[in-house]
């Protein structure tokens, strides 16, 4: 179902929601657990867990998720809190914001990239800034 062998997506069977092929979803699709999309979706999609978009999926939506593996077509902006993996069959027409990215050879991207600072990096930067401020005050 998903070509990419990213280990973080091995718990695919634990998906709370599966939108199978031959299903068309229209509207604001918001879930709490892992979501798998193999059919069509138009509107928006949001989850605080993982989102997996299958090879034959067609998604015309803005996406917000904690992490995501995309192997299908996405027309819309993608905002991923942690890591985004694009498989070789992924086609993205939209802007991407994420903290980490892996792109397999063959993936097509038409849009802007913004690498967001991860929580850990934010914390480290904050600590460095605090230390600098302390040293300056001395």
């Amino acid at each position, binding site marked *: 179902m998903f070509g990419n062998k990213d280990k973080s997506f091995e718990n695919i*069977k*634990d*998906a*709370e*929601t*599966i*939108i*199978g*092929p*031959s*299903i*068309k*979803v*229209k*509207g*604001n*699709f*918001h879930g709490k657990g892992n979501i798998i999309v*193999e*059919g069509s979706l138009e*509107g928006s999609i949001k989850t605080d867990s993982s989102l997996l978009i299958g090879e034959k999926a067609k998604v015309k939506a803005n996406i917000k998720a904690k992490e995501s593996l995309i192997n299908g077509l996405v027309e819309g902006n993608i905002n991923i809190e942690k890591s985004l993996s694009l498989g070789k069959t992924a086609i993205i027409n939209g802007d991407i914001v994420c903290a980490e990215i892996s792109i397999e050879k063959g993936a097509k991207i038409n849009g802007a990239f913004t690498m967001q600072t991860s929580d850990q990096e934010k914390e480290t930067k904050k600590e460095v800034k605090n230390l600098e401020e302390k040293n300056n005050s001395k």
Partner: protein
Amino acid sequence: MHLYIYDDFLAKNKYNKVINKIETRITDLGLNGKIIRLNNLKNIDKAIQEEIKRGAKTLIIVGNDNTFNKVLKSVLDKEVSYFLKNIFLSFIPVEKTQIGLSLGINNYEEACNILLARRTESIKVATANNSFFLSQATILNVNGNITIDIEDSYQIELEEKSSIHAINMPSYDLAKNIPKKINPKNNYLYIYINNKGQSFIPTKKITIKESDKNFLKLDNSTEIKLPCTLEISNKNINLIVGKNRVFS
């Protein structure tokens, strides 16, 4: 007090042997109780509710899915809502039934032993418009001309001939196919759509809109016209279940 409720179709001669076997087993196990036969009654709801008011605590439904659904409707009526928390439903199926399989009861012989063991579970009952169902609501082989509204926030359209199930407590047969274990205690209904692939969506409220003369079948018995709104009710029912039936 045990109350045995026999459906009217059991009056047919072909069921004599089965009924004799059930009654012999019940006597052997010391589980005798009052018997009411639905074929002799003008008002089924009233007859069952009167027995509950007189102190019937364990209602043993003898029949098929349709029998179970009829009794469920009577028991959940506001007329006996005060007694509901102390009532237990048990099922002796005389044929293969969806509810029997949902409760882990495969046949009438097993059902008598399950009644004796008295392992109980309390689960929420689901509604479809004004009707109740325990296990699942189903539309088989719908031709794609149907839309499903989910919690008023998004809509599902089907592009292929599909079977649609709204599941509260799946039968063993269905549970084997669905991708995730369903807990009928968690206030969610699960939409399971089977066509070229599988779709599985947990939700609190579903509205199935007009289609070409399709009916929604509740617990393999009552048919409901579309459009229809389905959700989990605030009513719990106590059930006597098979030893392998664990809801968690």
